[in-house]
C-alpha cells in the first residue's frame, strides 16, 4: 500500500463572517502517486477543500479551521513559510488570476516561480522550454500572458505550476475554458504527471474524463464528504444522481439496459470498458 501523503482529520472550515461552515467534519486519507478526482455541485466545497489542503484557507482567507490537515505526516500549519509551496502546486480555477501580473512574456511568467526558488537563469530557460513543450505552448513563449485566450492562459497557468516540479498537484477545473481537444491534451498531461508518480487532486466537472483518468473519486455535497473510493466503485452508484452528481453516460446506459433485462455482467464507466464488455457478450 502506498504511503499516505495527505490526511484530513475531522476538518471543519468556516470562512470569516460566514454563518455556516464551508467544509464539515471531513476526514480523508490520500495516498502518494494517485490521481484523485473531486466532484460535487457548485458551492459543495471543492475549492475550499483545495485551499484548505494547501494551507491557504487559514493563511489568506483567515477563516477558522477545526481538525487537522497533515501533509506527509506534518500539520500544514507547522510548515515554515513557503515550505508547502515547494512541494505542493496549486492551479487556480480562474486562469486570469493565476498570472502574476509582473511579467511581460509567457516565458518569464512561467519562470517567475523558479526565480522565487532561486534557480539559475540558464537552467530556468531549459526547464521553461521543456514544460512549454509538454503543455503545448512553446509558440506562445514570447507573447504577453494577458493577450492570450482563456484556454491558452489556462495552459500557461498549469505550466507555471508544473515547472516547479511539485510532488503534489492540486488542479481546480483546469479545462473550464478549453475546447474538447484542449481538454483532452490537458488530461494527457495530467496522466503523464501520474505516471511520474505525482499525487494529483483534480477538481473537474467532466465526469467522463475523470472516469478514464482518476484512480479515486471524492464526492462532496454542501461541504460534506458524502462518498469516496475507487473511481469505478463510486461512479456506478446511481444514488449519486440524487445529490446532483452527473454519472458517466456510459454507466447510466448500461445500468438502464440492466434494468431492462440486458445484463452485461458489469457496469462500465469508460468507453473502453464498455467496448470490452460488448465484445465479450
Amino acid at each position, binding site marked *: 500500500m502506498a504511503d499516505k501523503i495527505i490526511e484530513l482529520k475531522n476538518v471543519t472550515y468556516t470562512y470569516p463572517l460566514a454563518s455556516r461552515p464551508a467544509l464539515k467534519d471531513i476526514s480523508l486519507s490520500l495516498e502518494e502517486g494517485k490521481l484523485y478526482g473531486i466532484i460535487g455541485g457548485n458551492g459543495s466545497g471543492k475549492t475550499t477543500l483545495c485551499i484548505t489542503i494547501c494551507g491557504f484557507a487559514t493563511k489568506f482567507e483567515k477563516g477558522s479551521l477545526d481538525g487537522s490537515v497533515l501533509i506527509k505526516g506534518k500539520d500544514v500549519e507547522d510548515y515554515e513559510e*513557503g515550505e508547502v509551496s515547494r512541494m505542493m502546486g496549486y492551479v487556480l480555477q480562474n486562469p486570469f488570476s493565476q498570472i502574476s501580473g509582473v511579467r511581460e512574456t509567457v516565458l518569464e511568467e512561467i519562470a517567475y516561480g523558479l526565480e522565487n526558488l532561486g534557480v539559475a537563469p540558464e537552467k530556468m530557460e531549459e526547464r521553461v522550454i521543456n514544460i512549454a513543450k509538454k503543455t503545448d505552448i512553446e509558440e506562445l513563449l514570447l507573447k504577453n500572458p*494577458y493577450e492570450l485566450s482563456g484556454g491558452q492562459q489556462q495552459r500557461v497557468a498549469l505550466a507555471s505550476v508544473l515547472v516547479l516540479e511539485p510532488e503534489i498537484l492540486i488542479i481546480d477545473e483546469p479545462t473550464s475554458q478549453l475546447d474538447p481537444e484542449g481538454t483532452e491534451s490537458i488530461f494527457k498531461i495530467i496522466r503523464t504527471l501520474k505516471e511520474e508518480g505525482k499525487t494529483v487532486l483534480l477538481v473537474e466537472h467532466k465526469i467522463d474524463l475523470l472516469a478514464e483518468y482518476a484512480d479515486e473519486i471524492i464526492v462532496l455535497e454542501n461541504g460534506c464528504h458524502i462518498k469516496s473510493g475507487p473511481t469505478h466503485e463510486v461512479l456506478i452508484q446511481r444514488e449519486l444522481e440524487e445529490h446532483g452528481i452527473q454519472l458517466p453516460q456510459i454507466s447510466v446506459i448500461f445500468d438502464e439496459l440492466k434494468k431492462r433485462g440486458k445484463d452485461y455482467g458489469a457496469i462500465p464507466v469508460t468507453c473502453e470498458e464498455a467496448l470490452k464488455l460488448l465484445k465479450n457478450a
Partner: protein
Amino acid sequence: MYREQLMKKKKNKIAGLYPMCKLKMLGMYVILIILANIVQIKELPLLLIPLSLCIPLIFVLSGQPKDYLSFIKMVSYFVCFVFIVQALLIKGNDPVLIWQWKFLHIYRGGLDKGLTLAFNILNFAGIFYWLFKTSGYQEISAAMEQSGLNHKAAYIFLSTFKMIDVMRMNVYTIMDAQRARGVETEGNVFVRAKAFIPIMIPLVVNAMLEVGERALTLESKAFSVKCEKTIMIPATHNGYEKIALTISALIVLCAIGGYVLWLTR
C-alpha cells in the same frame, strides 16, 4: 535562445543605459529643476523655460523623439490650462500689473505661479516619462532588485505600474460586456458619463476580488520561499554608465557653481 532575444541590448547608448544609472541622472535633473526654481530673473523663475527644452533634447539623444511628441500631446492642454488659470486669477501679495486687455489682467504674482507650476509639471513629468519610455517597468524593477531592493518591495513597485495596463484592458472587456447588455458607451459627454458607473463598479469589484486570488497565485509560485531570488531577464549595463554619470554630474556642478555666483553677485 529566448533569453538572448529578450536581453537584446538597445542600440541607442543613452536609452540602453542601466536603469539605476538613469535613475541617478533623473535625480540630478531634479537638482537642476530645484536650482531653476530658486534662481529668479526679474522675480520670475525664467530658467525653468530653457530647462524644459532639455527634455526634448534628452528624448532626441535617446533616439525616441516620437515619444516626446506623444508626451507633449498628452500634457500640453493640462499645462496650458494650469498656466492660464494661475496667471489670470492670482494677483499675489504685492500686485504688479504686467499685462491688461479689457477685463483680463496678468499680475507678476500670477505669472510667477503659472510659470512655476506649468514648467515644473513639464520638467518633472518629462524626465519621468523619459525614464519609463527608455526602460520598461520590469527592467527598472529588476535593476532595483539587483541593487538590493527586497523582492516583495520590487513586486509592489512593479505590480502597481502594471496594474494600470491590466485595468485598462479590463475596462475594454467590461465595456464590451456592458455594450452587449445595451449600455451606451459611446457618444456625447452625457452618454459617456451615464456609462461611467456600470463600467467602474465591476472594474473596482473585480480588482478587489482578484487581490485574494493574486495572493494565492503568488504563494503557489513560491513567492514566500526564503532563499536567494534570481531574475531570468536581469537588467544589464551597456558600458556607457560612467561617462553618462560623469557628464550629468559635471552639468549639475556647473549649475551649482552658477547658482553660487548668482548668490554672491
